[in-house]
């Protein structure tokens, strides 16, 4: 009996899968994204409503490049969307993207936030900021200070192997060289209040819980927590912290990007470009700012008031592609000092 029942279920699965794979004849585009569905969905919905183009998505955690590469020439992927400049560059390096020339894109995205040949475009910016316990009254901070003995046992941060931190370490290398970065990492490691694990929001929660005084995390989480989108509990976490925009001693605040590329074998290239152009439009950039609390890439769209309240963002001038190049070294340095142990 069990077998028959299961066989019947299996037949259903086949029907469901085939029908979902076949799709309709209307304009479609296939989006492969490592961005969480909840963050991109509002943008997809708006695009679908205004153009009638159906957007099919698959949300991947890791292995975006591997998946597209092994699908090869028949890959249905049109647009590849991900966070972290290193991952965007990786897609280009593996030959999975194609260049796009579009006045709308070039006009909206500043040159330092896109690939010179049009292989990828940044869609939003996020700053790696300092969360500090309110009582400390901190107003300014340099990333270099994270290693200062003053903060011994008081710092919270996620794994150094997370792309956000790897990019921060890579920026440090770009500013100070590998040797100094190693010393800095050792100092920071010695200052940790707990294991380098978990996510960025836990930095706020751990500060509220008295585990640490300061920590490094991304800017938009503050908006997600403070706005109440994460529920009343997280609002309390956000209330426990003050955000400071740190800078490098000889530079600005470290930023990273979320971005997208057109897949090399995109079957719906025109639709994908249209979606990309929509994503850098004023409307979509407002959504990035207001729904996701990211910094828009367009100069003519303002960040959300919660984010704007951090003060003026002075972006570090190190080119993103240079940071991407130091990614590997940053990851190895973190292992050398046993940062996550």
């Amino acid at each position, binding site marked *: 009996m069990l077998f028959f029942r*299961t066989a019947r*279920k*299996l037949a259903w*699965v086949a029907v*469901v*899968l*085939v029908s*979902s*794979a076949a799709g309709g004849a209307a304009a479609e585009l*296939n989006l492969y994204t490592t961005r*969480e*569905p*909840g963050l991109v969905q509002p943008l997809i919905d708006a695009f679908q409503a205004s153009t009638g183009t159906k957007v*099919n998505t*698959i*949300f*991947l*955690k*890791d*292995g975006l*490049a*591997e*998946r597209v*590469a*092994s*699908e*090869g*020439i*028949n*890959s*249905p992927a049109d647009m590849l969307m991900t966070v972290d400049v290193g991952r965007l560059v990786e897609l280009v390096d593996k030959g999975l993207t194609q260049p796009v020339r579009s006045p709308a894109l070039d006009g909206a995205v500043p040159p330092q936030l896109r690939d010179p040949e049009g292989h990828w475009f940044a869609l939003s910016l996020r700053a790696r900021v300092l969360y500090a316990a309110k009582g400390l009254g901190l107003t300014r901070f340099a990333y270099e200070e994270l290693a200062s003995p003053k903060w011994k046992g008081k710092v919270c941060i996620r*794994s150094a*192997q*997370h792309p956000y931190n*790897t990019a921060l370490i890579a920026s440090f290398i770009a500013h100070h060289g590998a040797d100094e970065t190693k010393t800095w990492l050792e100092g920071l490691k010695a200052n940790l209040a*707990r*294991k*380098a*694990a*978990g*996510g960025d929001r836990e930095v706020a*929660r751990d500060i509220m*819980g*008295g*585990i640490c005084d300061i920590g490094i995390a991304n800017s938009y*989480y503050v908006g*997600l927590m403070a706005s109440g989108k*994460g*529920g*009343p509990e997280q609002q309390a*976490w956000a209330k426990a912290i003050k955000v400071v925009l740190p800078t490098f001693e000889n530079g600005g605040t470290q930023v990273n990007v979320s971005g997208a590329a057109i897949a090399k074998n995109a079957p719906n290239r025109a639709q994908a470009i249209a979606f990309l152009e929509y994503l850098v439009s004023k409307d979509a950039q407002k959504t990035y700012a207001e729904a996701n609390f990211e910094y828009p890439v367009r100069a003519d769209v303002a960040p959300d008031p919660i984010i704007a309240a951090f003060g003026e963002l002075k972006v570090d001038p190190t080119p993103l592609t240079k940071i991407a190049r130091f*990614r*590997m070294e940053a*990851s*190895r340095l973190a*292992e*050398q000092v*046993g940062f*996550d*142990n």
Partner: protein
Amino acid sequence: MRLDGPVAVGLGDLDEVGDPTRSGIRPALGWRVAAAAVALLAAAPILTLVVLALDGSVGLWPHLVAHVLPRAAANTALLLAGVGSLAAGIGCGTAWLVTAYRFPGRGVLAWALILPLAIPTYIAAYAYLDVLHPVGPVQSWLRWLLGYQSAREFRLPDIRSMTGCILLLSFVLYPYVYLTTRAMFLTQAATLIDASRTLGASYGAAFTRVALPLARPAIAVGVSLVLMETLNDIGASEFLGIQTLTVSIYATWVNRSDLAGAAQIALVLLVPVAGLVAAERFGRRQRSFAASAQRPRRLEPRPLGRTAGMLALALASLPVLVGFVVPAAYLAWSAWARIAFAGLSQGLLATTWNTVSVSAAGTLGALALGLIVAYAGRAAPGRIASLAARLSLAGYAVPGTVLAIGVLYGVGALDRAVAWAASTLAGASVGLVLIGSGAAMVLAYTLRFLAIATGSVEGGLSRIPPSLDGAARTMGAGTLRTLYAVHLPLAKPALASGAILIFVDCMKELPATLLLRPLNFETLATRLYGEAARGTYEDASIAALLIVLVSLLPVAVLARLGQDGR
């Protein structure tokens, strides 16, 4: 039939009956070929890994040996030792308590002790971090009780530690040991324990000197399942900040884009796994318990006094409380708060249906292949059958992400070949047949949980006396017909319990599902992950609760199977 389903769950079988070749079954070529095909399929992802590993340089190794491996290996060893011994202790202890003694709540506990199986380890980690955090309910209450104002004045040690990780994994994974060991205590040990009691041994002595040694093979099977789950866990240990070898593979692949390097580490990781498998085989070497066609006698539990009874109740409830009640109640509570706050999100029903469908397909696939491997061992024993049995472990022994990558590359190559053939031969464009249809995902489930399937079928079959094979053959039935008409009906409870375990495991599976699913296809686990990755655990709690609820049903059936014959 009153056979014990759960006893059959495991990497192999607890009872080794006489050699079937001697009962007059001629080796069947068909079964050999089929077993060889399954062996090849099971080995394919590993072979893919070898190809990937050879593709890269070995330049990574000096760095790994100097800075990563010693620490990761030590951590992994410590974690395995800790979880292995604690889970064994909890599993055997509770199994003995509910089998040998009569005390209040025993009837409920006998099945409730299986419930933690429904909680994925990563969900338990999320839940406990929330519950035990300084700003969480437990510590807030403690501060209130002790009169402290803020967490800066008083807080408990952080759960994000090796100790925390060992405790957490042990309390969620011990049911594997409980299941196998209890079935052994219930049936095989009864006669001998009674004999030892007649000879004047106390209950305690009967446990340590008779029951425990007798149950050694069952414990070995249960513990090795626990250890494999621990070894390939990435969610909980990464979340709690434990740098295991698996986490290192992950960092090498994801953060340094070095897939070849990651494949190299993954292959090295297979060495301790092979050791584990060998240890498990060694643990149950030369154990033969003649399975008779008669119904086994049950152990008669001894009533406990009031104080002792309460103590037993407290002891046996603790694992259920820690491994199931607390995380499940926490999920229910936060899911409730979320529904009140934001309502139910759309598509949850479709997602649940997706999850159940692909899990059922994966279960069916694993059972079918497991049946071939196990039956070949009976109908056509020999090198090929035993090789297939060993290789069927491969998918369970590597981390889920690694298996998924192996399947992705293998299936991707196949898909490209099919598309090329279709366009050259017929001029048709077929797209990606296997990845696009979800077949790749189901294949990954099948290979991942083949070990459980093979183990449970082997277990079910070996309880059937070979004399039945002979009788069926004498009457002119072929091996296929004997399988269908004699063996399958008799082995049904074992197959069912195996199917349930696989089904629940498929529901919880995350890495292969994320990497291999088709467009627009969500399961509860991917949804849970998507929300959790944003840090919106409250949204995730609804999906998590659904995973637990849908898993509960089969786990309840599994518990019933264990109760049969009381």
